[in-house]
């Protein structure tokens, strides 16, 4: 069971949260200019990282706010938690 630290409510049990997938996916500003392949990449393709994964969680049974988590997908260890709009930890390609 994960112990997730909501940036607003503090550490809570995993069952209070809803997983919302990969973080920092930006909706293309001009969808009409994209090819079908580019649009499919935005809609469906994911990094699916094995290792440090930046992901969104929602404190669904608590404050109902979204935030970002850096979690290792092999050990499941949560390395950091940060609010939307804050820069992700470390360098990203």
């Amino acid at each position, binding site marked *: 069971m994960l112990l997730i630290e909501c940036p607003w409510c503090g550490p809570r049990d995993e069952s209070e949260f809803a997983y919302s997938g990969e973080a920092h996916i930006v909706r293309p500003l001009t969808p009409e200019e994209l090819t079908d392949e580019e649009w*499919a*990449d935005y809609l469906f393709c*994911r990094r699916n990282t094995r290792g440090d994964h930046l992901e969104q969680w929602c404190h669904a049974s608590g404050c109902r706010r979204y935030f970002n988590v850096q979690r290792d*997908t092999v050990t499941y260890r949560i390395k950091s938690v940060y609010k939307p709009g804050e820069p992700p930890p470390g360098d990203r390609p």
Partner: protein
Amino acid sequence: MQKYSFLSLARNALTYHENWQRAWRSPDPKPGYDVVIVGGGGHGLATAYYLVKEHRVGSVAVLEKGYVGGGNTGRNTEIVRSNYLWDEAAHIYEFSLKLWEGLTQQINFNLMFSQRGLLSLGHTLQDLRDIQRRINANLLNGIDSEFLTPEQIKEMVPAIDVSPRARYPILGASLQRRGGTARHDALAWGLARAADSVGVDVIHNCEVTGIRREGGAVTGVDTSRGFIKAGKVGCVTAGNSGVLASMAGMRLPLESRPLQAWVSQPLKPILDVVVMSNAVHAYISQTDRGELLCGAGVDSYNGYGQRGSPATLEHAIAAIIEMFPRFSRVRMLRQWAGTVDTCPDACPIIGLTPVKGLYFNCGWGTGGYKSTPGSGWVFAYTIAQNRPHRLNEPFSLERFATGHLIDEHGAAGVAH
């Protein structure tokens, strides 16, 4: 290959079973192969077997980073069925089921394939409508399927609670009599032995670390045991497909999630069909050893750790106890999880890639086990002919760009 038969059993009994041949060799990798299959699970082994058997490919190797049967092939709930809603999915799963029906004989290995019947329960009016729709679709596709009333379910499965007061009242079910179970370790071992017997090198402890390309075509793979040249490379690595794809500079529409299963202590025979319920994400059967073998829905978050979330486990156990109140005091013996590669439309991706000579077979998500022989067969065809077979043509990677998705998610539910 030493043939397994009553005679060989009797002969070996005379020497106290000390002189059995190894079921398959453990060769060192050669410098190069015509086709290299990455991933020594059921799908990879079946692919290699059919490549030689059906398409006469000269030299084939299967590279497995761990050991045969250590991945999802040995971690599922052994369920085999083909009652899928959409034509594309129904065709490939039914083709696979037909291969299952002759596989024990074909590969001379007892897969303990048992067509004991499979019930999919409905708990709401909408469930019943979906079940009726699926039954009709199945019948039109030549797949056996029938509807059972709660009384008929109770007669078939006396241990189940069909009372209207249940938390999830059982209002009906679909039954596929040709569905059932097959022992998963036997499938892994049987296919490894079959592939080996036709000359495939099954190489253990050989992890692929890179896919070498030259001028847009694949030239070989870097592995933990050195570089291996390859004319064609087929990747069948389930949960790790995304990792392999990134080695070739590709992105896939996959997310790897843990999928859990567990067994109880062994009991006397009480359940002789497979019972599954999509609505409450749980399924259960009884193994020949007497264990109740149960499975849950897929976990909610990505994970490669081969461990599941206790919350998912608890949810599925609660649902099973609700359906079978008398199992409430049965003890759980073991629990485990596999890493499944889930696709947005819950259908696999089998086909060519933008890299010449590189093929992917992935995205089976929670439904891979039952499709093993069929998946191997069509993937072998795709690699050998360099074009998809009509059975896997709809499951191309391009469908995400064209929009021709096969929305099996709502149809099959999550329980596979």
